[in-house]
């Protein structure tokens, strides 16, 4: 979560409940890539405010810029907001 997202790199984002793996470019928000690929995920504000897209990350690194839609305790418990997070590695998400 320290290095800047790489625009020219793409990562595999796997959704375990939907059983889908989607390619997400390094500079793209995880939610945007999923929606573009036709995945139906809960979301609303797309700016890290409302927390509707909050998801459990099973593995991987990301760069998140939220606006209060998630608490530090929740992040410590493995939750993140796909709407305002870019991948820094392959991700596995429980959704």
């Amino acid at each position, binding site marked *: 979560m320290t290095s800047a997202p790489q625009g020219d790199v793409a990562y595999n984002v796997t959704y375990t409940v939907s059983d889908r793996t989607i390619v997400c470019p390094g500079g793209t928000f995880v939610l945007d890539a999923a929606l573009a690929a036709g995945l139906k995920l809960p979301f609303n*504000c797309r700016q890290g*405010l*409302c927390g*509707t897209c909050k998801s459990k990350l099973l593995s991987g690194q990301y760069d998140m810029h939220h*606006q*209060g*839609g*998630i*608490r530090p305790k929740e992040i410590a418990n493995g939750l993140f907001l796909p709407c305002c997070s870019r991948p820094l590695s392959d991700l596995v998400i429980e959704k």
Partner: protein
Amino acid sequence: MSNDLRALLARRKPGYTLEAPFHTDPAIFHADLDIIFGRHWIYVGVEPDVPDEGDCMTVDIGPHAIIVARDDDMQLHAFHNVCRHRGARLLHTAHANVGNIVCPYHQWTYGLDGGLKFAAHMPADFDRSCHGLRRIHLRSLAGLLFVCLAETPPADFEAMAATLTPYIAPHDIAHCKVAHAEDIIEHGNWKLTMENNRECYHCSAAHPELTRSIFAEGFGFAPVGAEAEAQAGRFHAMVDTLHAECSRHGLASQEIDHLDDQITGFRTERLPLEDAGESETLDTRVACRRLLGNLHEKRLGALSLWTQPNSWHHFMSDHIVTFAVFPLSPETALLRTKWLVHQDAVEGEDYDRANLTAVWHATNRQDSDLVGKAGAGVRSSGYRQGPYAPDTEALVEKFSAWYVGRMAAGIDA
């Protein structure tokens, strides 16, 4: 109804219990919620209910659903717990920790300062700044949280806070934690719960655990019988000794009573305890090894605080017990009790929860039983107003007089 209520208030006989409709009539209950609970400072909880950034507490005062929130700058706010979109209740648990307050219905998203930050699908000319959460007045009195639902709250709160802060502040509520809390539904009108609290006429028969440590004399009771004078003398000597000792520790202790002579009525006094004199426990010794704030002396008796219309509190050197009463229906009330210890005190090492809570857990149940009996009696056709004992139930009379006075003032406002 207002004419009936006006007549009932006008003919209230000082020194006597309230007539039955005050404890049973739905219309008077709604008038209580409007005039008493809607226009006065109501005690709702303590700062340790919301210790961290993003902490929220919900409280229902009759139909008034309230959120108390602590923002990321540690400032406290109170709002109506109602979405500005289609009115859904926002928070549903007693306590929550959130980044923003998000409506579960359509995800309208409010900051911890109440401002509306996000509302999907609203047109371009929708003004978010006009749709923030509706604010409620909130004050912290040295860590005790009071709200007022009125647009213009009674102005005398600040004077009460200035008077009481030197009494309460040394117990350092802000650095306490809630070690235990319990809610009891009492089967009587909220005023019966308050009246029961305002006297210790019933204490010796009803409260064997509580009377191991407290003196009924501190709660308005006048001793009777051949030894009455000596007993009263002994109690007053103990009060004087305790106040002198506490004064040496820089603690305010003297009795102050404004229960029935101002809008925001209150009373306080630091009272001695039996035997070891340390705490309201079964053995009269501290229940928590870690004392509150910077206190070093265990034997400080118990600082009592009473506020109109809905609270009482006992502050000792090692723990605090704090009580709030909320009306639920004409014939039921919620008694919410919290036990506070220093935030660094460790359960099982510094205190034993069962020992900490034993006295008031038992006392609450005994009181609840008595309130239920009073409730059952006043709803019976045979109930007539009864006289308060002038020497022992003076604080009950002050409660009833305050209530009648505030209702009479409010009904015409």
